[in-house]
């Protein structure tokens, strides 16, 4: 466990970057430091591997004061990933990744073998091993940065805005990759970002820092969204925190209905019996059980399904796996106001109206608040 104990960083010109910060960073989980620029999040990170020395307070790693450890061996025991990767442009990809093992005195062959192993782990093609950094895309360079940090298998990983310089699609891919790697390796990760979405997506615990280097709130992301400590945290979370919070509730609680669903080969009587004032549209499924589209009430009156005049069903959500946020999004995007739920194979599991989703949201919030009271 990394324990930051009332640490202050004051520069000679009087600026206070970090102000009496205390944090307990749990092992084998991702702790995100988030806040606006000038909140001291990078300074805090750099004090953990002593690239910056604190003015007051102590930082301990597993109970040992890091200020009393030799600085280079301390740094070699902590992986460090930086914005723009900071690769060595004069070394090949494999040699970049092998840097820390080489510093630790491993043989060249062993270091390179380890580097190739890590390339696979972070999803880099083995053919890139002999390339130079300039030949790689930004996203690939960042993967090399992560592999390089993991090379000597350090228990701690420090990440300083590692994904802020890549485009949103690549960033999402890198975030998913990080979560996957973390599931496999279980490192103690301290992650700095200014992007609250990234913080909520990745963090097991999120520390929100305010300008001047003071801690505003330290909580799991769901708690941050449901009960922000003050208006600063609330503003920082943005106007859609209610919607964002829904991503922490499963869609399993939704009551699906199958009554407005017909197969493409249904008879006219069956169609007539299914349409109700509450659900005037019918979802038409193919013979394989996958959704085709919504049928218009006007067409239904004629007693048959015009397969070429179906309304699009938008994007379905996977029942039980996707969150309430995804379900709500589907309902909002659907032209009929009903969301389509599918199972893992893409077959229709049922449909659900915006109204039903609204009820589920209300009960989820109520139970969420109860849980917090119990926990508190």
């Amino acid at each position, binding site marked *: 466990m990394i324990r930051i104990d009332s640490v202050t960083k004051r520069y000679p010109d009087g600026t206070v970057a970090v102000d009496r910060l205390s944090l307990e960073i749990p092992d084998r989980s991702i702790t995100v430091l988030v806040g606006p620029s000038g909140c001291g999040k990078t300074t805090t990170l750099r004090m953990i*591997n002593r*690239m910056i020395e604190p003015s007051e307070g102590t930082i301990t790693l597993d109970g040992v004061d890091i200020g009393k450890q030799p*600085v*280079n*061996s*301390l*740094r*070699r025991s*902590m992986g*460090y990933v*930086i*914005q*723009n*990767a*900071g*690769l*060595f*442009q*004069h*070394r*090949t990809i494999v040699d970049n990744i092998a*840097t*820390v093992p080489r*510093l630790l005195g491993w043989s060249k062959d062993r270091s390179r073998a380890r580097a190739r192993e890590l390339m696979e782990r972070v999803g880099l093609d083995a053919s890139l091993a002999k390339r*130079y*950094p*300039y*030949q790689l895309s930004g996203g690939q360079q960042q993967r090399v*940065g992560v592999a*390089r940090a993991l090379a000597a298998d350090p228990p701690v990983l*420090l990440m300083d805005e590692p994904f802020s310089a890549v485009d949103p699609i690549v960033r999402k891919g890198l975030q998913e990759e990080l979560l996957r790697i973390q599931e496999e390796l279980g490192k103690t990760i301290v992650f700095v970002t200014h992007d609250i979405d990234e913080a909520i997506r990745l963090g097991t615990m999120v520390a929100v820092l305010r300008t001047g280097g003071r801690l505003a709130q330290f909580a799991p992301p769901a708690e941050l969204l449901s009960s922000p400590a003050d208006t600063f945290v609330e503003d920082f979370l943005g106007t859609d925190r209610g919607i964002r919070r829904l991503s922490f509730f499963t869609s399993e609680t939704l009551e699906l209905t199958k009554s407005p669903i017909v197969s493409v080969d249904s008879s006219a009587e069956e169609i007539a019996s299914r349409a109700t004032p509450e659900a005037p549209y019918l979802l038409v499924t193919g013979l394989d059980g996958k959704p085709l589209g919504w049928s218009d009430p006007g067409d239904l009156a004629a007693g048959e399904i015009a397969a070429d005049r179906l309304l699009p069903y938008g994007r379905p959500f996977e029942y039980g796996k996707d969150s309430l946020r995804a379900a709500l999004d589907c309902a909002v995007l659907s032209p009929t106001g009903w969301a389509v739920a599918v199972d893992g194979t893409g077959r229709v599991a049922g449909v659900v109206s915006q109204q039903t989703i609204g009820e589920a949201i209300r009960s989820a919030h109520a139970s969420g608040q109860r849980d917090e009271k119990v926990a508190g």
Partner: protein
Amino acid sequence: MNGFFHLPSDLQNTWLGLVGLHLREALLPVLAGLVVALPMAQLCVRFRWLYPPVLGVTTVLYAIPSLAFFVVLIDYTGLSETTVMIPLAVYTLVVLVPAIVDGIRSVPQETLDAADAMGFGPLRRYVQVQLPIAVPAILAGLRVATVSSLSLVSVGTLIGNQGGLGNLLTDAMFYHRPMLAVNSVVTTAVLAILLDAALVLVRILLMPWMPRATRAKRTRADARPEPSAIALEDAAR
């Protein structure tokens, strides 16, 4: 071309011998200049305030004519090759120091941060990260220094046959054999082109990590006047 390689006996040397002498008198100063410039540049990077005065001093030294150096040096080193080479070594600093400083400063901050974070000590960081990344800029400076030094050796003839191929120039006047002057100029020019090409080749072979399209842009020293332009300027002095 008859008599092109037939040299007057007072030179006490063959054409090839003069080429060897010329190369030695030109290249040893560049090497000495590099050895002095490396620590000087590192100091300038470390202590920023030091760079402008160092630049000023090297420029002033560059402005002192070699004859003036000879007058002072002859008392100590006599009519020797050393007397010729000392000013030449001093002249290289005006190119090499800024080239190395630019090269080392061109290393991105995040690369340095990454090196620190991985536990490189200061010396290891200098040798394994900063210097290799600065090599293209240093090589660009070396190209200018080498060609300029090559053209300057000829002045050595003024202190008694210490000018390598330049000695042919005085003999051309003395014996009224203009072909000797042509020989001197052409040979020096060919040597300059060959050495410059060799340094370019070294860069291509040693630096596969540089993006080819941006090579010229990345090394600021490349943006300086062509080596040949400086060489001509020096010959005119």
